[in-house]
Each structure stands twice: as structure tokens, then as C-alpha cells.
């Protein structure tokens, strides 16, 4: 499934130290809520990167920052090595917008009900100065697995899954290299979710499009994404190859998330005591069941690689996995956090 060649190529989009503060309260309020804190992510060419976490963990904020719908407070967004936050200060250029496209969660709200499907696609093509003939429209609509006659349909005539496909077709109209998909399946019925996930895989495999897939459904992230990043309270806590990460979750929060996925085949079942411990650990670092010294409250954890012995390497930010020797620790702390090799 993975082309090994891509590992050597520079990533399509790199995020470095991205921080986003929201002002709380009134106009003159000085209260800030940090929605994202120093997030580092790489999105390689032709890969699907999943971003998982609970509601309020900052997943959507990250996507909105990348789509330039929000202005990050600090940090870098490097597209092909160019820091777009610096070079395009006042908002994204048209070139950026045609490279990075977004698909929203709610296909019922993102399509104007008074227009036909054809209108959305044609408009997207025209705005970006592309030919918008019948052939182009036909190609777009069939790429997302719909039939040509649906070009004539109004959004209300389509099912949720079909509407989401139209939203994806609209994103594809400008020939993007990166699609940010913010929970594209969570409003859809089970029967069509897999179809959308398979479409995302096809876009990657056949069109070489990179995707950032934002979800709280870990099973679907495992199914569709090459790498998965776990976001907790605005910080990335674990990341790496999806299969490795979910087979050997290291961070308490990742374990908490995974333990919450219903799985009838799980033998040990639900353990409220363990869950309460994990919950406490992620909320108050002092009570981490794995680290009785409460190191997290004193020092920021840095990225460590785990699972190398099992052949399932990925990184985790947790003191529990810190190398034993002080020298190694110093080196790791000093170095810029190395984003995982895909």
C-alpha cells in the first residue's frame, strides 16, 4: 500500500510549533484559551494522515488553521518549504487555496440548497480559472463515484453520503494536492461511511492526493490512514504508523481512547478502575498511574520512539518512555523534535 520512495521526499506540508490562542470573554479581556500548543505535523505526498482526539482537543482548529480560516497565533505552516504564514500574511493566496482544500463535517450545511450540483462544481472550476466544460464536470462527478445525471440534482434530492461526495468533488475541482477532511463521515449513516473512506483511499492511491483525516473514530483512522497523530488538549501526544500505534498504544490518553472503542471481541471488557486511572492521568499529570513521581507536572515531556523492538516504531510524548541515561535525555531535549519517519 505504501510506496517506500515517498519516505525520502520532503513532506508536502509541514507544521512547526503551531499555536492558536482564542480570546475568552469580552473585547478587552486578557483571558486566553490555548486551543493548540506547539503542534508539529508532517503531511507527506500521497498519504493519509489521521488526526484523532476527543471533542475539544483542537482537531478542527488545526484543520481550520491549515485551511487559513483561522489565523494561528504563532508557528509555521510550510507548503513545499515555503512558510505561508509569513509570505501570505493577509490570507491565503489563490494558489494556496487551490493546493489545500477542505471538506466539512456537515454535507447538509455546506451545499447551498438553491443550486444544482453542476453549479457547485462549475463555480469551483471557474473561480480557479479552469475549463468548466461538460467533460470536466463529468470526470469530476464520476471520480467521486456518482453518476452523470446527478449533475442535474439539487442537494435535497441526494442522500447524506451522496452530498458528501459532491462536497468532495467540489474540493477536487481545483486539483488540490491536500484535502483537509474534518470528520467527513460522522454525520453519515453507517451504510455509506465505508464508501467515503474507500473514496479517500482511492484519491490517495489513484490521484496521489494527500489527506488530513480528522476523526474521533479510531477504527476508521486505522482503516484509512497511513499515519495517525493523537491530539489531546491541543498537544500531540503520540503519533506514527497507524497500525503500530493502535497495536501498541503507549500514551495513557491513546490507551484511553482505544479502550473506549466498542469491541465485542475484547476479552477483558470494560474496566472502570483502569479507565478512571487513565482519565485522571490525562487530566492531572500528578496522578499518572504509570509515573508516580508526577514528572509531567514538572517538565514537559519530549518525543521518544517506542516499539522499535516489536518492529512497530512510533513516537510518544510521555516521561514513562524516556531513555534511562541523563545524557541521552539531554540530547533528546535539545534536539528539535524529530517528526516520525513514515
Amino acid at each position, binding site marked *: 500500500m505504501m510506496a517506500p520512495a515517498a519516505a525520502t521526499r520532503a513532506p508536502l506540508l509541514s507544521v512547526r510549533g503551531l499555536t492558536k490562542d482564542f480570546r475568552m470573554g469580552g473585547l478587552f479581556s486578557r483571558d486566553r484559551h490555548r486551543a493548540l500548543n506547539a503542534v508539529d505535523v508532517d503531511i507527506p505526498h500521497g498519504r493519509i494522515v489521521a488526526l484523532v482526539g476527543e471533542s475539544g482537543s483542537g482537531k478542527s482548529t488545526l484543520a481550520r488553521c491549515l485551511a487559513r480560516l483561522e489565523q494561528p497565533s504563532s508557528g509555521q505552516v510550510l507548503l513545499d518549504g515555503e512558510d505561508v504564514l509569513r509570505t501570505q500574511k493577509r490570507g491565503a493566496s489563490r494558489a494556496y487555496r487551490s493546493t489545500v482544500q477542505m471538506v466539512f463535517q456537515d454535507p447538509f450545511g455546506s451545499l447551498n440548497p438553491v443550486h444544482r450540483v453542476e453549479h457547485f462544481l462549475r463555480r469551483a472550476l471557474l473561480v480557479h480559472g479552469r475549463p468548466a466544460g461538460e467533460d470536466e464536470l463529468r470526470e469530476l462527478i464520476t471520480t467521486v463515484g456518482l453518476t452523470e445525471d446527478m449533475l442535474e440534482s439539487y442537494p435535497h434530492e441526494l442522500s447524506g453520503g451522496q452530498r458528501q461526495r459532491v462536497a468532495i468533488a467540489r474540493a477536487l475541482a481545483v486539483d488540490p494536492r491536500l484535502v483537509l477532511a474534518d470528520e467527513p463521515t460522522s454525520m453519515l*449513516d453507517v*451504510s455509506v461511511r465505508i*464508501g467515503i473512506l474507500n473514496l479517500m483511499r482511492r484519491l490517495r492511491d489513484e490521484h496521489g492526493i494527500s489527506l488530513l483525516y480528522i476523526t474521533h473514530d*479510531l477504527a476508521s483512522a*486505522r*482503516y484509512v490512514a497511513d499515519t495517525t497523530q493523537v491530539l489531546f488538549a491541543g498537544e500531540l501526544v503520540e503519533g506514527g504508523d497507524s497500525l503500530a500505534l493502535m497495536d501498541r498504544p503507549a500514551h495513557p490518553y491513546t490507551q484511553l481512547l482505544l479502550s473506549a472503542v466498542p469491541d*465485542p471481541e475484547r476479552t477483558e471488557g470494560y474496566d472502570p478502575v483502569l479507565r478512571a486511572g487513565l482519565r485522571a492521568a490525562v487530566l492531572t499529570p500528578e496522578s499518572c498511574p504509570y509515573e508516580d513521581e508526577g514528572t509531567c507536572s514538572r517538565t514537559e515531556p519530549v518525543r521518544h520512539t517506542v516499539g522499535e523492538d516489536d518492529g512497530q516504531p512510533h513516537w510518544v510524548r510521555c516521561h514513562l518512555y524516556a531513555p534511562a541515561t541523563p545524557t541521552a535525555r539531554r540530547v533528546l531535549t535539545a534536539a528539535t523534535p524529530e517528526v516520525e519517519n513514515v
Partner: protein
Amino acid sequence: MTVPSHRTASPHRPVPSREPVLDVRNLRVEYGGDGRSVVGADNVSFTIGAGEIFGLAGESGCGKSTVANAVMRLLKPPAQITAGSILFDGRDVLAMDPRELRAFRWREIAMVFQSAMNSLNPVLTIGEQIGDIFTTHERMRKRRARARSGELLELVGIDPARLKAYPHQLSGGMRQRVVIAMAVALKPTLLIMDEPTTALDVVVQQEIMAQIGDLQRELGFSVLFITHDISLMVELSHRMGVMYGGRLVELAAAKELFAQPLHPYTQALMNAFPPLTGPRVELTGLADTPRTEHGCGFHAHCPDDRSDCSTNIPDLREVAAGRFVARTGGGAR
């Protein structure tokens, strides 16, 4: 497979009694008007025993919510119950008059609706809304109702101080718990839950489900649990039915059904959820074709024996003790 289905429930749960609390027989609901009608549920029969958790699974539009609303007598025109019977504790629910219904609803059958957390009144505090149940149904004094409301909140793990909170001050998960607390306030015999956790994320969902499990063990009510998430259902339910196109296509003990689904639709529905373990294999999911009068809309995935399916889904047939499947030919695979 010769064990009665009730006995196969997981060992840590109390074994449900054999006397059904709810007995739905050959239920048919039609949505009519303008000279044409759509069948929302057809020939649906199942029973729920005392203390039993029964699940109904299926995708949108399969009729599972229609069945739930029929049991509560909440269907409004153009929906109409055109055939069948619903017995609750031996009483005919369909024959109840409005006065009887008013006493019956909430006290005997309570319901947690889909997106229930948005059903709280935004301008009343949580305490006022819970208290309403006691003052209306039990004619309790305000002060007493307030105390009871506090106890209820504690039951679902929320600090009674939150009685003074307005719904917008609570998180989605907490609002959902409040709604569940309200549903069990009068200690109903049967609790209907229609997709109680769909709008919540996984961690909160798990906590709510555990809460429901605890409440059920504590208060001993029966549950009709409706969801499209088969894994979640298998974890919680004793027995479950799978609905498709308004009809039950399979009915069995939850663990058995999960271990060996017999109906091709059940298999496809289970195949629509990516697994958390094992190698990554391409899933096909479900066909996106609607059901028509010429076929059930599911032909593409069906194996050999569908001679009789083209016009309708066949009736349930018992293939082993407590295992029913809607297939014409063959037995257990």
C-alpha cells in the same frame, strides 16, 4: 445452540426471566397519504423479558425508530399502525385511551431520544426540568421533588449542585446523562433508547454506556436499545434483532449473532465497521441502492438462495433454538 437464547447472555448480567415484559407481534406500520403508502415496519415480532437488554440494529430508514415510536404510541399521522399487536405486561398498548396512555408513558415505558441532549429546555434549569417529572406525575411537593432530583443526578454521576445549571452550562455527555436520569426517574419497567450516544465521541459514549449498564443492574428495568453500531450493541445487549427495509432479518442472542451472522445483510452490516485489530483489508460496506418493489435493494451481496426474496424479505424462520433468520432456503449456513 440448543441452549435457550436467554441463557446465553454474558454471565455477569442477571439472567432475564422468561415472562416477556413487552410482546410485539406482527407489527406493521405504514406511512400513508395521497393514495400511496410506504411500509415503515412490516411483520415485526419480538419479545423483551424482565431485566433484559434487547437491541435493534440497522441503518437509517430500516424502521427501528418506527418500531420504538409505535411501542410508545408516539406515531402521528401519516404514520399508522395497520396490523399487529403490542402487549405490555399483558395489557394491549394499542387499545389504550389518552388518559391511560398518559399514565402509561414515562411511568412504565420511558424513552431516551436520538439527540436527546438537545431536547432539554434551554431556559429552565436542570433542577426545574427534573423536578417537573415528580410534581407532574407523582404530585410531589417542590421541596421533596428537589431532593429527589438531586438523588437522581447523583445516580448518573453528576454533582447535585448542578441542579441550578442551565443546559448550555453542561457538556454534551452530561446533558445526555441528565436525560437518562430523567428517563429512569419514575423507575420505568422498560427504557427505550434510540441512538443514545450517536452525537457523542467515543470516550463519552463508553462512559454513558457503562452508566446505563450500572443503572440497569441497579434498577432492573428492561431496555430496548436502538443503534446502528453493532459492536456497541453486542457489548451491551443480551439479545438483538437486525432490521432491514422495515423487516427483521435476524434475531438471536447478541454474542451468537456476532460470532456467526446468518443473514447476508447482517454480515454486510458487520462488514461496514473497520476492525481495530488484524490486518488492513478492504471493506465493501453496504450497497447504496434503495429498496424497491422489485427487490430488496440488496441483491448484489446476496448468495445463492434468494429465490423468494425478489418481492419481499422472507419471514423469520427458527433455524436453531432462539435463532431466527429471514432466509428461504438452507439452514445454518
